[in-house]
């Protein structure tokens, strides 16, 4: 099974590299194809515009029969994203289909940014502001956009070699 998951991830990577959707980039960890780093750029004309939000996708051997675990590394302020970066998205849970690939996942996450579902909040503050005080909501979102510029990839690579080696230790 693991070979099927890897084969599929290689194809996903080829597709993403050859035909990347707008505002999305992603690639597997050089040492472990089961862990991907990705960046989603905030869609234009939304409060998330200009943000570059980093995420990790962790795939299991049962991919694509089971969805990967998707987690924001950048700090987010969004009704459906938990404080620890995990997100509440139907296609990553009960509506998962094995035909989704990495590009489809990232596109869905990107569209979730400006199309939250305040009915199932993962961040109560964000959900409440989104519903009741859009100005304040936008201000808080803008803050995270500015924060996202600070953790640029070079800094992070320099800052967290030990954490990435931890992940590999677990995966191995």
């Amino acid at each position: 099974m693991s070979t099927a998951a890897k084969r599929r991830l290689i194809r996903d990577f080829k597709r993403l590299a050859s035909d990347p959707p707008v505002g999305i980039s992603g690639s597997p960890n050089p040492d472990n194809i089961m862990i991907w780093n990705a960046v989603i750029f905030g869609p234009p004309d939304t409060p998330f515009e200009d943000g570059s939000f980093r995420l990790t996708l962790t795939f299991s051997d049962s991919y694509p029969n089971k969805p990967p675990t998707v987690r924001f590394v950048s700090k987010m302020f969004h009704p459906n994203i938990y404080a620890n970066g995990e997100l509440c998205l139907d296609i990553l849970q009960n509506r998962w289909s094995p035909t989704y690939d990495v590009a489809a996942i990232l596109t869905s996450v990107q569209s979730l940014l400006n199309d939250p579902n305040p009915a199932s909040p993962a961040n109560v503050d964000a959900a409440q502001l989104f519903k009741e005080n859009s100005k304040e909501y936008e201000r808080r979102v803008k803050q995270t956009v500015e924060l996202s510029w600070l953790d640029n990839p070079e800094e992070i690579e320099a800052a967290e070699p030990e954490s990435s080696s931890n992940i590999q230790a677990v995966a191995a």
Partner: protein
Amino acid sequence: MSSDGENEDLMFEDEYDDAFDQDEDMEDVDSTSEPDVYDALSPAIEEAPQKKPYDISWKVRTLQEIIDMQNKEIKKIQSLLEVPASTAAILLRHYVWNSEKLQEQFWNDPTAALQGAGLSPPSSPSTRTQTLPSSPEKRPNRLPRTTVASPSIRTRSRLPTEPFECPICCTDFDKTLVEGSTFAMGCGHRFCRDCWGEYLSGKVKGEGESAKIQCMESGCQRVVREEVIDEIVSSDISKRYHNLLNAAFVADSSNLRWCPHPNCEYIIECNQAPARMLNQLVPTVECKCGHELCFGCGYGASHRPVLCRIVKMWEKKCADDSETANWLQANTKECTKCQSTIEKNGGCNHMTCKKCKWEFCWVCMGPWSEHGTNWYQCNRFDERSGIDARDTQAKSRASLERYLHYFNRWANHEHSAKLDAEFYRKTEKKMEQMQNSGNLSWIEVQFAKAAVDAVIKARITLKWSYCMAFYLKRNNMTELFEDNQRDLERAVESLGYLLEQNIVDTDSIAKLRQDITNQAAYVQKRHDILMDDTLKGYLERRWEFSVDI
């Protein structure tokens, strides 16, 4: 799936009829259904002694009978709508086995009905899966038909004459293998069989889905047919899939219910207790496994004479309240203003409610403002305001005490019922003793067991009568109810006392036997009176409850 039986019964058709019109049908069914070995073992099920207005008829079904019921409906729809069996099954499941509604909608707009159920219209190759594994003679048939299918579907469908890469696992199949190793439904979304197997097994085993497993393609609502699943997955998964289908059928049918007892595979069929009748009926039924259950709510024992809804409320209240309430009563007082419960865990008597900021005295419960400068003592116990405050508190306490009164009695009988086995064991020992020392035959000492049976039965009824009493409004009817309850309680207690008596000598046995037999008959009579009166009371709408039913 079984063949269609000649002993098809009439019951299923009457599923949606009114509850009380069906006694005749029930009898018909009894006489036409297969003789069952279990019938001989439990004649009580089939022939209720005498029919009371609140009694209901029911039938215990086997799994095979449930399967036959479904097949019969499927056959009917299959011939009426002229569709394949699996199409009929998917349609019926989509319309929750309401065949009238299905027919109405189907004749109204067949395309919409089929699409709504996750099937393509008849003009497109909806029956294609039946040709699996591919049978060449049917293929020419299929090609002209596909031309009618909507173009959007066809563009995605690849003809299995060119090499193919499974979009899920990226395995390549050359054109000779495409037909045998890959599979697509009428929607044309083709994947390899391994991926299908993985997906379908996951759906059945992991998520417990059955009737509505859809195509793997995201957003495609095409429902996977039974025969496809059976063919692709392993036999144990397929078995589980069919179990799930049967379970879903039972769950979807308001006149069917699984027996809730562990390892019991029987299904109760009852047409006389639809949900809307549950405000005046307590449909207690007995399964062939020997256990009683409530058909209305699935409670695994008789909860007569209490209505299902009240049982539910009571159980919830007990789960939430009983222990907590006891503790609260012993350890707390309520804020005299906002009624928040307060535990005093130290400090002086000057209390400030954290919630409403009200300041009061813990001793006299009066407002603190009247205490002036007497900070740490209270000599104002008799002041008017303090008395009023204590009155309101007394009221809330009284309601709690009322609940605990009923709960304790309920719990007491519940506890006694748990000691059933012990009671039987003790009585058996006594029966042996009587046989040995009193020269009584085995049959002559059976009165003791009968008496224990009566006590246990009455205890269960009494237990629920306390739940009932808790929710009853105070009026004359309730007084009568409580009189009956009291009489039964007394009768049970004195019978219990007699059963605990030690056997002293041979002479006393004869007297004890006489007493116990008499008292047991009396208990039985009081029990029937309470049960009769209460259950009839529902039909006559005599009971007034303090809650909405």
